[in-house]
Structure formats: C-alpha cells, structure tokens
C-alpha cells in the first residue's frame, strides 16, 4: 500500500536516505539544509537499519569521513548548503579521483561568500563544471519536487555505485523547505557485500586493494584521466534525464531546472493563455546535460529563454547545445530573490518574442 505523507523536502530526503539502505551520513548544519541532519538525529536510524549518523566537527571533516566510508565500500552521504559545499570541494575532487561512490546534497543558497540563506541556483557551475580541481565530473541530479528529492536519493546511490563516481543532488532553499505530498519507497536492506575495490583488509584469497587519487608518474596519471573520460562518455550516453512540457506545437522554448522550472511552468501556462506557443524543457540531470534534445528543439524554435535563479549559468550549456540555430537568452533573479511567473512571461515577451 502506498504511504503518502506531507513532508518538507529536506526531511523527506533524509528519510529516503534511511530507506535507501545508506550506511552512513556525515554532516554539519547550515541553513537552509539543517533539517536533513536534524531529522536523521531525531530518527536515530542506527536503531532502524544500523545506519550511522554523525555530526562532524566541520564540513571538511564530514566529506573526508564520507571518503573513508566510501573507500570501505559503504553507501555514504553528506549534505550541506553552498558555503559548506565549497569547503567540501577538495574532498569531492579526491573522491572523484579515487573513483569512489558517494552522494552529496547541496541545498543551494545565494552567494558569493556567506551570501544569504534564501534560495538560489548559483552553484550550477560549481556542480556541473567541477568545483574542485582536476578533470572530473559529478553526476548532478536536480529535483523539482519533494517527491524527486526522495526518488533521487535512491537513484543517486544506484548511479554512484554503478559508475563508482560521486553524485550530487542539486536542491535549493525552496525544494528543501517546502512541504508536499510524497510517496515513500519501502525500506531497502543495507547491503553487506564488500565490493572487490573496497579497502576492507587483506584476507586470505583476497587481492590487496589501494584506494588513492595520487599518481606521481605522469604516464600513469594520464591513464587514470583517460579511464575517467571514457567513463564520463558512457555516463553521457546512458544517464541523460529530462522532462518536456507542451513542446509538440511550440514555437518558443523555456529551459529551466529545479524549483525555477516549476515557476517557469506557471509562466508557460500564462503565456499559453495569451496565445503564445511556448514549451518547457526541464533537465533532471544537469550533468550529463540533455544537449541532444535541446539541439533538436533549437533547430525548430524561434527562440529559447533559460530561466535561472542566477546571473546566467545553464544558459551557456543551452547555447552550446543549440549551436547558433536560434537565439538563446537568459532571464534570472538572484541574491535569494525568486522570479515571479509574471516577470518570466514579461521577459519572454521582451527578450524572445519581441526581441
């Protein structure tokens, strides 16, 4: 039987972590994400599944605890908000370099610096283009509903282990704080298998395993890089996810992700009422980016408007995908301000239809 609950995005995500059979959560509180660790502490999942929850002394410590647990083959995760995620970036680069699976949640707030605690999407570049040093990629999932916050925890762990790669859920202050109806999946068992790459001790009959991101020989490091790049090409081929709304007859197109896609959908409805044939593409994976479908739409649209709560980040990937086939413009509010559907409609009229 379906279990329907009204839950906050952050709390639903925390419950999903327990149910996905996570072995460990390491975190440090920061608004607007603190409900994740608060919920886990209150729920005390060690009694339910044996899952360990620890408040680390800092974000840097938390991500390195994740690194250690992941190295032992465990399903480990952490969560934070923008300034805290910046602190974790060194560790994320190491985890990507060591090819370990883990789940990282960023409930984005506005920056730069300490910025404000209000919602934003200004960490798109950081999540999608690197953030930490070196040629690496994270799989980046962008939930637009509380339900997706739940579903992407399970999907995120699955993808992380499938590709031995860090996965980030790029949420924001709206998705984290809002309450919606949510259907929770059933409790999954924690796995007790030890993957062959896990550093769990050299037992008789088991090869020795070294987990490291260090290769002092350039020839060897290049092999690592080539292996990573080959993996990323597979991810790009297999893991693109997106939704389209009312695109069949569309002459104009919105592209928006996360909470902003929902506000944009309202703007699309308003635009349709005014007689404009507008559709919406909502990337659910920001890396790998749905460039093929956007390229195809680019060939038959009169113009594309990206709507983001930042000064124009995803718009660069949309432009690369469209490759000059039609005009691509950006509309954004930032600093914690949320665009209204009317503003978005106005931007469509000014920048695309009239432009």
């Amino acid at each position, binding site marked *: 039987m379906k279990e329907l609950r*009204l839950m906050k995005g952050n709390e639903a995500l925390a419950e999903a972590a327990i149910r996905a059979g996570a072995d460990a959560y390491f975190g440090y509180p920061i608004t607007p994400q603190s409900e994740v660790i608060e919920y886990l502490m209150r729920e005390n999942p060690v009694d339910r599944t044996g899952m360990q929850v620890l408040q680390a002394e800092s974000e840097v410590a938390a991500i390195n605890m994740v690194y250690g647990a992941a190295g032992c083959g465990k399903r480990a995760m952490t969560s934070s908000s923008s300034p805290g995620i910046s602190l974790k970036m060194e560790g994320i680069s190491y985890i990507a370099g060591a090819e370990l699976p883990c789940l990282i949640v960023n409930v984005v707030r506005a920056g730069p610096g300490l910025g404000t605690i209000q919602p934003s999407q200004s960490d798109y570049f950081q999540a999608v283009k690197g953030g930490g040093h070196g040629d690496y990629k994270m799989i980046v999932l962008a939930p637009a509903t509380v339900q997706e916050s739940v579903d992407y925890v399970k999907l995120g762990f699955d993808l992380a282990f499938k590709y031995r790669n860090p996965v980030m859920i790029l949420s924001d202050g709206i998705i984290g704080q*809002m*309450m919606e109806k949510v259907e929770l999946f059933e409790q999954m068992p924690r796995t007790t298998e030890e993957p062959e790459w896990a550093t769990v001790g050299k037992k008789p009959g088991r090869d020795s395993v070294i987990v490291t991101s260090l290769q002092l020989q350039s020839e060897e490091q290049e092999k690592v890089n080539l292996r990573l790049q080959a993996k990323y090409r597979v991810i790009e081929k297999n893991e693109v996810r997106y939704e389209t709304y009312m695109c069949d007859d569309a002459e104009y197109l919105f592209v928006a992700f996360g909470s902003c896609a929902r*506000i944009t959908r309202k703007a699309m409805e308003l635009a349709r009422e005014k007689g404009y044939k507008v559709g919406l593409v909502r990337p659910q994976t920001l890396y790998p980016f749905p460039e093929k479908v956007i390229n195809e739409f680019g060939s038959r649209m009169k113009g594309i408007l990206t709507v983001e709560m930042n000064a124009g980040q995803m718009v660069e990937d949309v432009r690369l995908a469209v490759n000059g086939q039609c005009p691509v413009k950006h509309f954004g509010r930032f600093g914690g301000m949320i665009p*209204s559907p009317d503003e978005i409609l106005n931007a469509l009229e000014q920048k695309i239809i009239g432009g």
Partner: protein
Amino acid sequence: MTEEIIIAGFGGQGVLSMGQILCYSGVMQGQEVSWMPSYGPEMRGGTANCTAIISDKEISSPVLTQYDTAIVLNQPSMDKFEDAVKPGGLLIYEENGMTRKPKRTDINICSIAAYDESVRMNNTKVFNMIVIGGFLKVKPIIELENVIKGLQKVLPERYHHLIPLNEEAIHKGMDIIKKEHSLN
C-alpha cells in the same frame, strides 16, 4: 479548484502550522497541496508567513506573488499582503492589533476577533484554529471531517486529546467571522 493562500502574522501566532493543517486536510481530501514557509531572518521574532496551495491539479509554482486569499494577523502583514490579493479574492484579518482598516474595494473582506474569542475559550493556543474556522466558513474548500483527519496527522499522538477542543475552536471561528466588504 485551485486555492492559493498566504497566511501572515507574528511568529508564535501559529501561522506556519495553520498552513500545514490546511495542507494536510487537503491531502486527506485527495487533493494536491504545497506549503512554503518564509524561513528568512523574519522568522526570528518578526513576521512569519507561509504560502499554502490546495488544488485538484498538479501544482506548478509553489511560490506566488498574487493570492486568492490572504489571511493577515497583524498590521505589517496587512500592509504587505493587502495589495497581493487577486481582484475578486478574499482578505481575512484579525481585528486585534490592527491600526487601520483595509482599503481595497475590489475584493471580499472579512474580519475575525479570534484572539478575543480564544481568551473567552480560556486557551489562546487555539487562536489559529478559530481563524481556520472563519476561513472555511467563507470558503468551504475542505470538509470539516478532513480537517480533523489532518489534525490527527499533524499533531503528535500525545496531543490527540486536544482535537475536540480544536474542533470547537473551528466552529467558534465559523460563528464569529464578520463580512466587512462584499462584492456581491
């Protein structure tokens, strides 16, 4: 049916839980709901507000700038949200502590003396339930029995003995809400 509601007042008046109760009641009635709080610096002692949306259809934007109904429980909230009511919409305000009446003439306006009533009931904690009662009298979008089911979900079990008191408060609110300005 889609009802987009803003509820605003001082922190401690039960603003956020009012929105949650309405949303949970909507869930009990099989509707789509969304609840979005203000969580900024204003919630630390100043004004608090939340957006509650109850609809037959999937809800697109959880964040709005115009509302079908504004429930305002103090003067700063009235100042902020009176203009955000859609033409033909509804404004409900708590009489206590208001220094001016609303000015709009293109919306329906109701007042409710919920605080005074909660004092008469000898339990100021049911203040927000009185307001909910008033709202449901004017806009009966949710059946009372589903509100009670919603309360059972929102309240921890140790407080379930207080549900009859809350139900009484809802009925009081339905009795005492007053029409100040009617469009028809």
